[in-house]
């Protein structure tokens, strides 16, 4: 379990993989706080389309980002099966709306391959590498820029 802390090339890390549409993505398990079911969000005025709104997470106000829309896919139609991955991004906690969580992967850093050139610009700014697992391709993404505030700072 503590391999994730190791930094050398052969160290293994754990990732949580999830589905957006038909594509599979994953994020580092260390940034995931919890996974919960979909609850309707309160929309925020004047917010980008991928910000679904805010929900009540045990007394804290949590913003929900539609990861599909954020990555440039058609927006997710939230169903009862949709899942919110509560993740830590910097000092903030953000909820990521995805279609389903597929599992936990244990990989070593050397299995992460560079991002292919074919991906769209939007996806490329989030995807840091791809993994080949059991014949599936899973994109490893970074969450640093999911919130508009972070985007503004970067600009």
């Amino acid at each position: 379990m503590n391999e994730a802390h190791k930094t050398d090339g052969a160290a293994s890390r754990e990732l949580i993989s999830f589905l957006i549409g038909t594509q599979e993505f994953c994020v580092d398990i260390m940034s995931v706080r919890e996974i919960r079911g979909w609850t309707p969000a309160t929309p925020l005025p004047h917010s980008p389309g991928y910000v679904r709104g805010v929900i009540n997470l045990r007394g804290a106000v949590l913003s929900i980002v539609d990861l599909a829309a954020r990555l440039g896919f058609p927006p997710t139609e939230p169903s009862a099966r949709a899942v919110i991955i509560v993740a830590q991004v910097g000092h903030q906690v953000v909820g990521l709306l995805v279609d389903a969580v597929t599992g936990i992967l244990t990989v070593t850093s050397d299995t992460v391959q560079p991002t292919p050139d074919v991906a769209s610009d939007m996806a490329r700014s989030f995807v840091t590498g791809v993994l080949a697992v059991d014949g599936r391709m899973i994109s490893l993404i970074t969450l640093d820029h999911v919130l508009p505030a972070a985007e503004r700072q970067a600009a």
Partner: protein
Amino acid sequence: MDALAEIKQTFFQECEEQLVELETGLLAIEAGDHDSEVVNAVFRAVHSVKGGAGAFNLTDLVHFAHTFENAMDLVRVGRLAPAPPLVRVMLRAADILADLVRAARADAPHDAARAAAVAAELTACCAEAAPKGAKATAVGSVAAAAPEPAADDAFEFVPLAVDLSDFGDLAPMPGLNRFRITFRPRPELYAKGNDTVILMRELALLGDALVTCDTGGLPGLADIDPEGAYFGWTVMLETERDEAAVREIFDFVEWDSTLEVEPVAAPAPAEPDEEEFVFEPIPLDELPDLGPPDLDPPAPAPGEAEPSQAVVVPLRAAEPAAVPAAADAATEHRPAAQASPTIRVDLDRVDRLIDLVGELVINQAMLAERVNEAGLARMSQVAVGLDELEQLTREIQDSVMAIRAQPVKSVFQRMPRLAREVAMQVGKSVRLVTEGENTEVDKTVIERLSDPLTHMIRNAIDHGLERPEVRLAAGKPEEGQVRLSALHRSGRIVIEISDDGAGINRERVRAIAVEKGLIPPDTKLTDEETDNLIFLPGFSTAATISDISGRGVGMDVVKRSIQALGGRISIASVPGKGSTFTMSLPLTLAVLDGMVVTVAGHTLVIPLTAIVEILLPKATEVHGFGGNARVIGVRNGFIPLVDVGEVMGFRGSLEDARAGVALLVEIEGGARSALLVDAIQGQRQVVIKSLESNYGHVPGIAAATILGDGRVALILDVDTVAAAGSRVGSPDLTLALAG
């Protein structure tokens, strides 16, 4: 270094508490309470500040506190009467002490000249008291003559014997504890501003003390280190208190000294050895003339193995009357302090707890609803259990809120000093009366009350009270009175500031308002409306701008800051009798009284404090005004009508204003605006949640809250929405809001 900084921080926090204690005590003394407990409390406060400051090498602070302490000590032993002039000097000294503490905390320079002046005054007061009767002054003089034995006065320590009592009194009494206390300070103890004489006096307060000084360690003159510590003391103490009480006295100095406290069995009734300790009394005025330590060494006490040369000072006789009273005070005071121990907790933790309890309340409400939906009978076990749960949650919520609540004392206590200073500057005589200091309100409210209160007290003294000669002419006492009071009223805290001055000069207020173009010259105003003109921005009544209250900000700023706290302020004035400002504030900032409204299917909360009235727009009242803008006619005036749904981007403009409800709100600068919403759901108390912490700022939204159904609702930022609405003609509302 970090650890030290942390300790230093704690020291400053404690200083604040001591300073409050100090001022309270001095004010009580000024009011005529010369009780030894009060005097001791003041003394202890100064002493603690000095002790702590010494540990951090805050020399200026130590020196000033030391001068102050000396004066206070004279009062304590009854050699200096706490007459009003002295107490006034001491109050000023307390102010200086507070300044020094603050300067030390901020690492900033302070007004050394002012401190020196007050220190000189204190010293002068002490000097007056010095040449008094010799016998009863023994202890006081030791303190006065040798305040810092380890420093400049080191040479004056000579073996001397001062016998002031009949040793027969020391015969052990049944039921008393006897301790032999051996105390040998190290140089560090003195370097930190502690003083053995004070410790000895504290011991004497516990009971009968026989103090023996061991001067055997004193080297020859040539070898003396002026900052060294060469003496040790042995105290035979007979007291009703236990060992812990004795050790408590040495709490602050234990690690800079060698201390032994051992219980001694009651000696046989006849102990002839004690006679050996009686020495020739030496009149104190001869002390400075005493030469080097070549007095005849007294015969060693056969019974006591310890000292070879000894100074015996039975302290009991020195304070014949004060001791029993002070001892009583000590017994009363200490257990009381122990009875309610306190802990310092990070505010974030408390806030987290409050959040969780808020969530618990919501969950409990949801659970109750589900149980109801499930059709369980009212009297079923589940329903009964649920009722109990509800009661428990309420109690938890109240208790948690009480953690954040603090008495307004902390802010009220800063006001007497302010009143003194303002009164001095404007040459008026003022008595500030405070009431209800123990009224509790949320910490954040207290912190943010300080500025408006300061401003209003300045105003009351500067503008409210007449000049002394005018007061006398009007048949009022020369000394003006400003009353500051706090009380709880229907879930809010009400703070009143009243003066017995001339009241508001309505004609002048009106003239000024007209002159400054705040009202048209022909406006008809009621007295109340005229009084309220002083809250308008840009209104300032002082004919000459004084540096006290006429610095461009006026009552409008006070009003804004009170409103920002979710409060309201009003004024009542009777000509010739004075004015009263009444502020009503919520008990906490975590909770807000809100109007829950619906806008295009979204639930929004509008702070109730902003809402002036609710209107149902009629077709004849709504008028188009250029572009898309609309105004609504309210009693012969036109007020911009702002469609909240449109500004929020929830929908296009609501064509027919009659379909909605207009909320008349007051915004920054006193302007009014009407917010158009679809429907009103009701009025509710909501818990404020930050949006910034997990998202960022949203234009037009002040914060969020969680409603009873567990969903998040947004709290409207009335000022921004109203301002954006008035620019409704601009093509991009989002930009208008964001900019």
